[in-house]
C-alpha cells in the first residue's frame, strides 16, 4: 500500500509544528512503520535539530529538487530508529526554491517505499504553505489554547477547505490543565466549538518537551512523560486505532465531557 502524506501545519508560528512532526515521526517509527519526514521550512530549518540529526546533513530538499543529488542521498537515517528518515530543508535558500509540484513529485517518489511521509510546514500562509499542502493526503492543524493561535488555525482551516484538502484534523498542543481549571485558559471545548473539525489529540503542557527538544531527543521516545504518551496516542489514532483521550487529571471531568463530544461526533 502506498504511503500516506501527512502535513503538519498551523498558520501561527511557535505553536509546536516541528515538535509535533518530530514526535509523530518517532512514534510511528516506534510502532514499526517506515517513516520519512520532510522539513518544508526552507530557510528556517529546525526539524533536524529537534530530531538530533543536524550534524549529519550533506544534501537537502533543494539539492534534490534542483537535481544535485538523488533523493536517497538526501535522506538521513535516524541513529535510534532504523525506519525513520529525514529529508532536511536547505538553510541558505528560501521558500521559492521549491514549488508545489516539486513537493508532489518528491512525495510520489517516496510513497511506494514508506508508510508515512510527514511534512513539517513553515508558519504563514504564503508560498511555503502552498508547497506543503499540495502533496498532502491528510492535514493536521496544530494549535494552542490561545485566542491568537486559534484565530490563525481557523484561517488555515479555511484555506485548506478552499484547496479542497480537508477535512483537516486538530491537535491541541500545550494545554495546561491547571490553568483551564482556574478559568485562565481556553478549554478544549472552546477551541473545538469554534474550529469545528475533528480532534485527533491533546498534548498537555510538559516541561520535558523543551528539554528533549534542546537535546534532540524527541519526547515520544519515552512514553513515561505525559506529552510523549500523548504523541504516541496520536500516532495510534493515525493508524486507525481508537484510543481514548488521555485523562490528564483524575479529578476533572473535563476530558470525559470532551471525549463525549468527540465520540458523539464519530
Amino acid at each position, binding site marked *: 500500500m502506498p504511503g500516506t502524506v501527512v502535513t503538519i501545519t498551523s498558520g501561527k508560528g511557535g505553536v509546536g509544528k516541528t515538535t509535533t512532526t518530530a514526535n509523530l515521526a518517532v512514534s510511528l517509527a516506534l510502532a514499526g512503520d517506515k517513516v520519512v519526514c520532510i522539513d518544508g521550512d526552507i530557510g528556517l530549518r529546525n526539524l533536524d535539530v529537534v530530531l538530533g540529526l543536524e550534524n549529519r546533513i550533506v544534501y537537502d530538499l533543494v539539492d534534490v529538487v534542483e537535481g544535485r543529488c538523488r533523493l536517497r542521498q538526501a535522506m538521513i537515517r535516524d541513529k535510534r530508529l532504523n525506519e525513520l528518515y529525514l529529508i532536511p530543508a536547505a538553510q541558505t535558500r528560501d521558500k521559492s526554491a521549491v514549488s508545489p509540484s516539486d513537493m508532489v513529485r518528491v512525495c510520489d517518489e517516496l510513497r511506494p517505499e514508506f508508510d508515512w511521509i510527514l511534512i513539517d510546514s513553515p508558519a504563514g500562509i504564503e508560498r511555503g504553505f502552498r508547497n506543503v499542502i499540495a502533496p498532502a493526503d491528510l492535514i493536521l492543524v496544530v494549535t494552542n489554547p490561545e485566542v491568537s493561535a486559534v484565530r490563525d488555525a*481557523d484561517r488555515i482551516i*479555511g484555506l485548506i477547505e478552499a484547496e479542497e484538502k480537508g477535512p483537516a484534523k486538530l491537535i491541541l498542543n500545550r494545554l495546561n490543565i491547571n490553568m483551564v481549571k482556574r478559568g485562565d485558559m481556553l478549554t478544549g471545548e472552546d477551541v473545538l466549538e*469554534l474550529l469545528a473539525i475533528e480532534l485527533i489529540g491533546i498534548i498537555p503542557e510538559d516541561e520535558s518537551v523543551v528539554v528533549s527538544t534542546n537535546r534532540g531527543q524527541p519526547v515520544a521516545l519515552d512514553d513515561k512523560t505525559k506529552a510523549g504518551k500523548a504523541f504516541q496516542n496520536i500516532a495510534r489514532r493515525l493508524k486507525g486505532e481508537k484510543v481514548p483521550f488521555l485523562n490528564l487529571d483524575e479529578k476533572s471531568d473535563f476530558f470525559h465531557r470532551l471525549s463525549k463530544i468527540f465520540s458523539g461526533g464519530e
Partner: protein
Amino acid sequence: MEKTAQAVQIKGIREGLLVTLGEGDWQSIFQQLLDQIEQNSAFFQGARLALEVGNRVLHAAELGTLRDRLADRNITLWAVLSQSLVTEQTAQMLGLATRISTPRPERTIKPLDTSLEGENAVLLQRTLRSGFSVSSRGHVVVIGDVNPGAEIVAGGSVVVWGKLKGSVRAGIEEEGAVVCALFMEPSLLRIGEIEASRSPDKKEQNTVMALVKDSQIVFETWKIK
C-alpha cells in the same frame, strides 16, 4: 469576409499573437489563416503565434504542416492550446507549448458580487472562517457560523443562522437594515453609519436582531413581525 472574421480571430497578448480558430473544415480554416497572414504580411512578420483550436483534433501531419507554412512566412508557432488530449499530445510531440503561462493570480478571497436581477441576497451555506470576506450590495444570508476574523459587508441586512462572532457592516446602501443571528457576539457591528457601542449582553445574545432605533443600535429578541 464575414465568415472569415468569425473563423479566425487574432488578438495580441503579452507573449505575441493569439489566434483562435473557429468551427469548420480544417483545410479551409487553414487556408483562411494563411490568407489573412498574406493580406497583412507586414503585421505578421517575425510574429510569435499561439494557436487556440478548441476541441479540434489535430494530428502531427496537420500541425507540422501548419508550423512549416508559418515558418515559411517568418512566423513562429510556439504554442497550441486545445481541450483535446490528442491535439495537446501532438503539440507536445512537436515541442510546442500547450499552455500560455499567464501568471496564476494569487488565491484571493473573492468578494461575492451578486446583484442578480430580482434577487438581492447572497446565500452562503458554510462557516465563514477567519480571513474570509463577503461583500454584497444586497442582503447576506449565512447558514453556518461567522468566526472571529471573518467579515461581512452588505448593502442590506445580514442574517446568520449560526453564531456571529466576526465583523459585520450592514445597511451600506439601504435604510432600515437589520442584523440577525442565532447567537451574537460580533467583533464589530455597524448598521449604516452607526456603530454598536456595545455587544449584546448574556441575556440578549441568543436569537437576536440588531437594528437602529433613535440613531443607536439596539438588540431585540428576533421575532417575526
